[in-house]
């Protein structure tokens, strides 16, 4: 039990946001993380489940995902789960357990800005945008959203472009139910054998997911099956990592090289 005075369920984004501006209030979606909070000051939880934000809509060039969509729905949606030739299905399945995926929402996963979040790495690899509400609706790149602390804003929707090219996700964890020691997403489009575009995202460094632009730029114009070793060496030189209970900064650097090698082999197949 957490000690609060009220649990409210507003039915519009505007009213949820207004209540959210009151001191000692917190939004709750799946509740997985909020249920662990031990704060004496917290007075009010604002449940976002009545905002009609549980949907996956397919448009011509992208999918729109409501913030309250559960991670399990991403896997069970026939068209969305197959995005990037099954990239979404395979990568989301790496997260937690069936129970966790039935509870965790897309909005809660992104808004919490966890360094070890696989969800953020996966959606950043796909080139997603976030719609937020803070008095008005705004749309920003996921990459910019996680680097800014937008206080009190409600995440309402994620837009995920239809991916052309190949996309893979690699996660290294100590067990298949543990959070990542390091995770890595790679999206590559090819012109014949040559890399035309590349997006490389690494998370759980243990800091927040980040694009590794030096390596992306290095790969462009190179032959995909010849770039692996040099790219793997380069990422270890340029990536910023840290030490925590799971691994040292040096270990994570070496791991980034191995995961990139693995990802590039899968992309080249």
């Amino acid at each position, binding site marked *: *039990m*957490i*000690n*609060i*005075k*009220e*649990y409210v*369920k507003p039915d519009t984004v505007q009213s949820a946001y207004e209540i959210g501006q009151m001191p000692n209030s917190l939004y*709750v979606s799946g*509740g*997985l993380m*909020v*249920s*662990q909070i031990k704060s004496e000051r917290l007075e009010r*939880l604002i*449940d976002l*489940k009545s905002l009609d934000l549980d949907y996956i809509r397919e448009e011509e060039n992208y999918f729109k995902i409501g913030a309250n969509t559960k991670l*399990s729905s991403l896997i069970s949606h026939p068209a969305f789960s197959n995005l990037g030739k099954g990239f979404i299905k395979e990568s989301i*399945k790496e997260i*937690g*357990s*069936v*129970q*966790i995926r*039935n*509870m965790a929402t897309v909005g809660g996963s992104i808004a919490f800005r966890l360094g070890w979040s696989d969800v953020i790495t996966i959606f950043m690899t796909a080139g997603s945008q976030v719609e937020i509400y803070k008095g008005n609706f705004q749309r920003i790149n996921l990459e910019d959203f996680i680097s800014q602390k937008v206080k009190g804003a409600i995440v309402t929707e994620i837009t995920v472009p239809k991916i052309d090219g190949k996309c893979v996700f690699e996660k290294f964890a100590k067990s*298949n*139910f543990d959070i990542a020691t390091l995770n890595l997403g790679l999206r590559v489009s090819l012109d014949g054998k040559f890399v035309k575009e590349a997006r490389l995202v690494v998370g759980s460094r243990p800091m927040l997911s980040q694009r590794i632009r030096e390596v992306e730029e290095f790969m462009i114009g190179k032959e995909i099956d010849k770039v692996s070793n040099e790219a793997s060496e380069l990422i270890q030189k340029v990536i910023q990592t840290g030490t925590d209970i799971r691994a040292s900064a040096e270990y994570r650097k070496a791991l980034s090289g191995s995961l990139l090698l693995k990802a590039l082999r899968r992309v080249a197949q």
Partner: protein
Amino acid sequence: MRVNIKINDKNHSIEIEPGEMLLETLRRLGYKGVKHACSTASCGACTVQIDGKPVLSCSTFTAAVDGHEVKTIEGFSNEGVLSEIQKAILEEGASQCGFCIPGLVVTAEALLKENPDPDQKEIIEYLKGNLCRCTGYESQTRAIMKAAKARRER
């Protein structure tokens, strides 16, 4: 605050604290088959189904379940007659201390509903959030395969 929840097909109108967890509510109401272990969404012992989906009651706010249907382990046996999964667990020696079993059965019921003929890999994958300190999982996997077969042949 007052909430209305259907638990194992019975309607309950209950007074709860706003920050109360479903696990606490269920045990207070007498559904003691729902086990309290880690409280951090890490072990699966407290698993119940909400609207047919397995979730962790230790990390679910009761207030969020207002208007929904909950099924606990007590809802899967029929007037004292064990379900196929429970029977197979006994027969295969898949329960030692038994603490993880209610959560395991509730999760396995959802698996067999989604996939009546799971292979070993699919069972291990689906049940990876249900930790067991005693059995080493082999007998549990065997039991679920056996129960699935019995159910298909029923």
